[in-house]
């Protein structure tokens, strides 16, 4: 059994072309080497001028034409079913943002990894919060770009139980190669159980929940180490150099500064860090104050 319903078509198209390619590569190389020895100057001191042959030109135009049209056809046959998802597909929203995948289910459940029931068509509605990404599941032979501002989707059927990697295939900045997740294909009843499990963040700080949801931690750590942005450890009260309009300023980070930074991420830039990366998120004043509240606790 193949891991997804598309593996067979993709692999056939791939190996069909590879087989013909190997045939021609080996054949042409062999003939080339044979001619090189058979007609080397020592064995064949006088060359023959042969201007060409229309018969041969026609043969080696027609044969490759037939072959490439077959290659095209199998490529199309393997691809066509990817275009339209069946109507009964289960829809899940897949959100890509700098360097994290999030999967939102209809019942409100949201997860960092994708869990799906076996043998059911799944349709992922793709959303990007910032730049281009591409959701790639090598084992399923499937990828689709995730483009901000466009409602793209992809669909597939997981046909074999197991856990498979999800990668990002479209370059999206510093930690592109760490934008990893996985898809787990499980039995139907197990899936229903998983979907019904309540996410319990009631005793979590609301600021922390918001920050997890907005992927702050894919760029900022809480332990003082440097990732893409400065660490949150001890950030409130820290004095540091920022660059505003190409001029350096020394400031002490406080609640106002963080609020301003979250509302206008590009207005300033902490010296020594790449500018242009802090995302502008639609956060309410209330949410911002939760976040500031939580950040102040990271000492």
């Amino acid at each position, binding site marked *: 059994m193949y891991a997804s319903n598309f593996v067979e078509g*993709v692999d056939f198209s791939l190996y069909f072309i590879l087989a013909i390619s190997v045939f021609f590569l080996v054949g042409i190389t062999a003939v080339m080497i044979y001619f090189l020895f058979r007609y080397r*100057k020592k064995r064949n001191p006088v*060359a023959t001028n042969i201007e*060409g042959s229309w018969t041969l030109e026609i043969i080696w135009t027609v044969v490759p034409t037939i072959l490439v049209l077959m290659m095209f056809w199998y490529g199309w046959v393997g*691809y066509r079913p990817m275009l339209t998802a069946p109507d009964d597909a289960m829809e899940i929203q897949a959100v890509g943002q700098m360097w994290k995948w999030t999967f939102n289910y209809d019942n409100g459940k949201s997860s960092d990894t994708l869990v799906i029931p076996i043998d059911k068509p799944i349709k992922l509605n793709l959303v990007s919060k910032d730049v281009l990404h591409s959701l790639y599941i090598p084992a399923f032979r499937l990828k689709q*770009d995730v483009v901000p501002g466009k409602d793209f989707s992809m669909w597939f059927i997981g046909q074999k139980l197991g856990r498979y990697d999800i990668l990002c295939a479209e370059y999206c900045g510093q930690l592109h190669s760490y934008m990893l997740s996985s898809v787990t294909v499980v039995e139907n009843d197990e899936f229903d159980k998983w979907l019904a499990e309540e996410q319990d963040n009631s005793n979590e700080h609301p600021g922390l929940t918001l920050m997890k949801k907005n992927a702050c931690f894919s760029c900022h750590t809480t332990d003082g180490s440097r990732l893409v942005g400065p660490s949150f450890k001890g950030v409130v009260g820290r004095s540091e150099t920022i660059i505003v309009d190409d001029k350096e300023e020394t400031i002490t980070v406080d609640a106002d500064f963080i609020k301003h930074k979250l509302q206008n991420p590009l207005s300033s830039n902490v010296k020594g860090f790449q500018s242009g990366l802090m995302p502008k998120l639609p956060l309410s004043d209330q949410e911002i104050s939760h976040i500031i509240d939580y950040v102040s606790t990271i000492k």
Partner: protein
Amino acid sequence: MTVDTLPYTTFFKAKKGIMSWLFTLDHKRVALLYLYSIMTFFLVGASLGILMRLELFHPGKDIVEPHTYNQIFTLHGVIMIFLFIIPSIPAVFGNFFLPLLLGTDDVAFPKLNLFSFWLYVIGALFALGTLVLGDGPADTGWTFYAPYSVRTGTNVTMSVVAAFVLGFSSILTGLNFIVTIHRLRTPGMGFNQMPLFAWSLYATSWIQLLATPVIGITLLMIVAERVFGVGLFDPSIGGDPVLYQHMFWIYSHPAVYIMALPAMGIVSEIIPTFAQRTIFGYKAIAYSSMAIAFIGYFVWGHHMFTSGMSGPAAYIFSILTFLVAIPTSIKVFNWLATLYKGSINIETPLLFALAFIFNFLIGGLTGLVNGALAADIHLHDTYFVVGHFHYVMFGGTGFAFFGALHYWFPKIWGKMYNKKVANTAFATLLIGFNILYFPMIILGIMGMPRRYYDYLPEFTFWNQISTVGSWITVSSLIVLIVNLFVAANKGKKAPDNPWDGITLEWQTKSPPPLENFDKMPKIPEGGPYNYPNAKSSS
């Protein structure tokens, strides 16, 4: 015979002083200025390549941070594409040999030619300027895809301006060649008596002239967006990122033929000379260049099969992509047939030409895989593609470039290199090259995305093999270059026509005099490769 031994002034000695080089109007000197600059950038680009391969030796961090790695592959791509491969064969060998092959004394517009070179230098300065100015070199990949290229704080603006200026240099070279080919052929040389390298430059020049302006305006749009916030490609200010991809590839796919066609022209020169017989299927080879240039305009969409393309569009772009393969395969078969019943001299340039065929076949055949819709969905933006385009650009065009350098070296410098060293460097380069890039094809099929600073542990083995290949490749390149460098200074004197070629450049002295020919060159009867000593076929 007596004429040959008379003293004469070579173009090297015709004028003296650094200014006579920097402001030369002689196409041969302009070609050499290009050669030295292009080789310098090739070495810089190759060093960046080595750095990437070192970083990828183990999973996790080896030598640089992710951000630096991203800047390295971007700069590597920008240098290799805009400063090395696009100008390479046309600007160096086209400039030097097009007038010689046509039996004339210069290109149509010598001043424009010098101006293109200076545009190249200015463009290069912009590209290198990103190293020290602003927030460092761009980290977008050489494709500058929006909206990341609009948002990142690195110096994208300057990189893009570099590519813009370099584009103009390329357009002007193309324009110059088109006019040269139309107006300056020696009397009696019709289009169908032109050597095939001239044909391939002709096809290439039209692409340079017609496609390059598209990338120019696209890159300016990026600048407008970054500097003035005009919403063109970034959806958060009302733009469309997919529009950028279309505009980028409308140039950049035809650009692939700017890289490939001149290389095919070189191979079409080298093979008949070393087989000592006429080329098989002259017209088929000449017209297939034009066919490639034409169809090549309409296939750009194959870079975007995963960008949400509609079914019918994907269908059409895929089928057109397969059609370009046909004229390409026609060329390969005709080259092969040219070896048949030849009297073959196995020399370094021929080895490079045949290695071109081998590598280019792998590049072309893996290209078919990418053109097939189903397979491309899996392999797009993986290392399969990285392997594929290095086979085409480096294994193909790069090898043809070095083949041309060994072929025309005795003509340019009047000296001969050490052939043993040259053959050894060739052999190790071919082996190293394949060890470097074949693993990438496997990694792609296994599912490793490109532009990856770090990778999953299952990809380790083939990455390490590839890195070892990069060491062999670069060592061979160094031997190859040092060998030629030594020969240019201290090599044995080469005869005017060491390979018994019959195209016109072999009728003048080595190195040629300033005006190229002392007396009118004689066009070979019955076609540019009609070797008089060979038997006729009927």
